[in-house]
């Protein structure tokens, strides 16, 4: 174990045959901050400086096929499966504020809408895989990664090709905003700190219940957030 990861504690969670690695980057009291990495990335070894202001414990999840989580055989990745990865992390943490980079920002939005009573705010930031495959389907001539599969190494090449082209319609994304608004007990359950807005995020940023603000403001907002009784 390197000095950088010396303080990091890892919890293993099984998600239907895949071993997920959930890392505790910092202990503390109060609500956890759950960090979701971008496409092809992994959880950092320590709390990134830009998240250090979070008052409570900080955790990071390696998605299926990424970092220290396992890679399944034969691909089949969808954003919804990664959302279920995040749900497994929530099952361990109870409640969390979720901050996501790129692909992880999209997943943060999905889980905020799907588990509105467990997610106290989703912060969407820039990062790899933020656009996905755009808002409409395509006709993929290439269905397999070009390289030979390197047995079990992460990131899984199937994750890279499949999650780089999963379709993300704007009205699908805003459905999850609506769920979060109605059931989270937060007036503003989604904060967009990303400066690049692919079509799904452009739709989200215009929706009711979403604020565009810097990362420090968003962290401050959810550190102080108190829920009203959810609808």
């Amino acid at each position, binding site marked *: 174990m390197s000095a950088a990861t010396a303080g990091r504690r890892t919890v293993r969670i099984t998600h239907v045959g895949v071993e997920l690695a959930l890392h505790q980057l910092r202990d503390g009291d109060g609500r956890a901050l759950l960090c979701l990495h971008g496409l092809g990335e992994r959880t950092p070894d320590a709390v990134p400086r830009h998240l250090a202001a979070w008052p409570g414990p900080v955790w990071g999840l390696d998605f299926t096929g990424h970092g220290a989580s396992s*890679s399944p*055989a034969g691909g089949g990745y*969808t954003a919804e499966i990664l959302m*279920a990865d995040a749900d*497994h992390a929530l099952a361990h943490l109870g409640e969390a504020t979720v901050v996501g980079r790129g692909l992880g920002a999209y997943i943060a939005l999905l889980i905020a809408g799907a588990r509105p009573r467990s997610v106290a705010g989703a912060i969407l930031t820039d990062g790899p895989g933020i656009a996905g495959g755009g808002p409409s389907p395509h*006709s993929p001539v290439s269905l397999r990664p070009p390289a030979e599969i390197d047995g079990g190494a992460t990131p899984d090449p199937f994750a890279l090709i499949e999650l780089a082209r999963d379709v993300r319609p704007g009205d699908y994304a805003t459905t999850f905003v609506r769920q979060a608004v*109605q*059931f989270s007990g937060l007036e503003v359950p989604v904060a967009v700190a990303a400066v690049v807005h692919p079509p799904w995020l452009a739709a989200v940023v215009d929706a009711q219940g979403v604020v565009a603000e810097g990362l420090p403001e968003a962290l401050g907002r959810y550190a102080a957030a108190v829920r009203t009784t959810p609808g």
Partner: protein
Amino acid sequence: MLAVASLVDTAPPPAPTRSQVGAPSYPGARRPDRHRVVDSDGVRLAVWEWGDESAPPVLFAHGGFDFAGTFDTLAPRVADAGYRVVSWDHRGHGDSSKGHLYSWEADLRDALAVLGSTGARSLPVVGHSKGGALMLQLADAQPHRVSHLVNLDGLPSARSWPDVPDHHRTRMLDGELASWLDHRRGAIDKVRRPGTIEELAERRARMNPRLELEWLRYLVPIGAFEQPDGWRWKIDPAMRMGGFGPWRPEWSMARLPALGMPVLCVLGLELEHMGWGTRPEDVYPKLPAGGRFVPLDGVGHFVHIEKPAVIADLILDLLA
């Protein structure tokens, strides 16, 4: 840093082929002549073949929650006309291994692995329901691999979406999302409910109400396996019907006008729970140039099981 998670291989013995003792019987049905396995990037696919091994191959794709054995009445008719019918159990279905993950694109890649295993560069494809929509995308994405396309009641249209007000939809979706995630949390320990052959047939009849019980009983020893406490369907308990996602049914039909190979679309006009609710007026404007469309009155979603002779003749006519 971690090895590929290994699939626990507790697979029961595969369904019997034609020559094996214990092969079930049903009027007009014939078990495949051969069974083999194709590896699709670590997922073991059970492949089934009817007809002469040296005859020109035709690829058959079954529907969701089905398996290749559901072609036991259609495939022999096509094989006997001089073809080698090749089908496979989709990942998580029948005798194929469970996938850790399931997606449309993974199924498409599996289809291509089976297609490649026939040795043909390009061949006719036939698909029912989900398999039909899958073959439609294969023909669109890989036109150089598909010589003819037959789609059997596998044309999703926008019509199948219930029209509900937004506020009601939000409440409904809240339950759907939570229930899907709860299922994922518990799916690791799930097993299918055991029963007698009769009970499994009756359970299947709820999803396939127009099919004869005798046919559904025939399917049990093929699609299910026996343990001391009874029979269980082989389909992966981690899978479940319905679900949600960004996919719109009309995206599938939007691929139809682009196709350049000979195309035959068959629609059963009796509406069924397992079907898409697509009407002829949804299909006609999307037919590619020269495409043939056959709506069948008084026939349900499982057109090939209700009318195997009619469907076989239509397929052979397209291939002639």
